[in-house]
């Protein structure tokens, strides 16, 4: 019987929080996913793992930006995240350089996304214009 995604994510989160993220453990998870043809579930599983980590007080934030994020910005991001998640014990910011977003920043964390990028605004403009609503 197939293990549910949430159970699998809980297992990974618990194991990694207890023992940390080890190479062998990662390989085991990868092998399991391959064997059970669940490689497509990887993104969803990692989101659930992030949520479990956040519940446990360890919040990972993936910050995508078009230009390199300065330490000052990193600090501001941490401050904001701690305001959003007061129970957070540890905030880990993973920085990704993505010129596609043009400018601003996109924050992905714990099953949520805060998209402050120019790309998102332009897409919103397109969407609202096509549906005939005014863009404020």
């Amino acid at each position, binding site marked *: 019987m197939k293990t549910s995604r949430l159970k699998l994510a809980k297992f990974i989160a618990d194991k990694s929080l207890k023992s940390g993220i080890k190479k062998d453990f990662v390989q085991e998870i990868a092998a399991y996913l391959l064997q059970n043809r669940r490689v497509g579930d990887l993104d969803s599983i990692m989101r659930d793992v992030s949520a479990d980590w956040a519940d446990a007080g360890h919040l990972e934030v993936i910050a995508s930006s078009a230009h390199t*994020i300065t330490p000052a910005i990193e600090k501001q991001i941490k401050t904001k995240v701690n305001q959003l998640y007061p129970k957070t014990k540890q905030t880990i910011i993973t920085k990704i350089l993505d010129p596609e977003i043009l400018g601003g920043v996109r924050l992905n964390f714990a099953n949520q996304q805060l998209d*402050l990028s120019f790309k998102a605004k332009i897409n919103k*403009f397109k969407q609202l214009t096509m549906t005939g609503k005014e863009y404020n």
Partner: protein
Amino acid sequence: MLPNISTFGASSSGIGALGFDPKAFVIQLITFILAYFVLKRYAFGPILKVLRERRETIDKGVKLGEQMQKDKAELAAQVETTLQETRVKADEIISASQDSARQIVRAAEDKAKIKAEGVIKSAEERIQQETALARQKLEKEVVGLIADATEAVIGEKVDDKKDIQIIERTLKGIST
């Protein structure tokens, strides 16, 4: 007692001198009378009968001819009357056919008019639909162009410093 006829004939004087022979006359008279009776009995009757029959036949023929002329005249009159009636009926039929044909043509014209109006209406609706589609497509393209232009401008104008400033401003603006 007959007079002495021979004396009359033999005489060279009196009536004899004229060449009249009484004897011969009497014989001829008797012969004539006999002939007359014989003819009357055997000839006159049949001849008269034939003549009468012929006359009757001729009379019949004349009457028949007259009757035929009369009948011919009556028939001609009847034919004329019938012809007139037939002409009148034919005129009526033609007139009715023309009316019927006019009605059919009128009905066909009305039908064609309705169909044409339907076709025009469908065409107008289609034009409107296609115009709306074209407008939507154009709007989409314009929006796409604006977005592309905006992206291009942002790519050109927004450098590291400006981007950091914008991020700082945005993060400050997030209400918690």
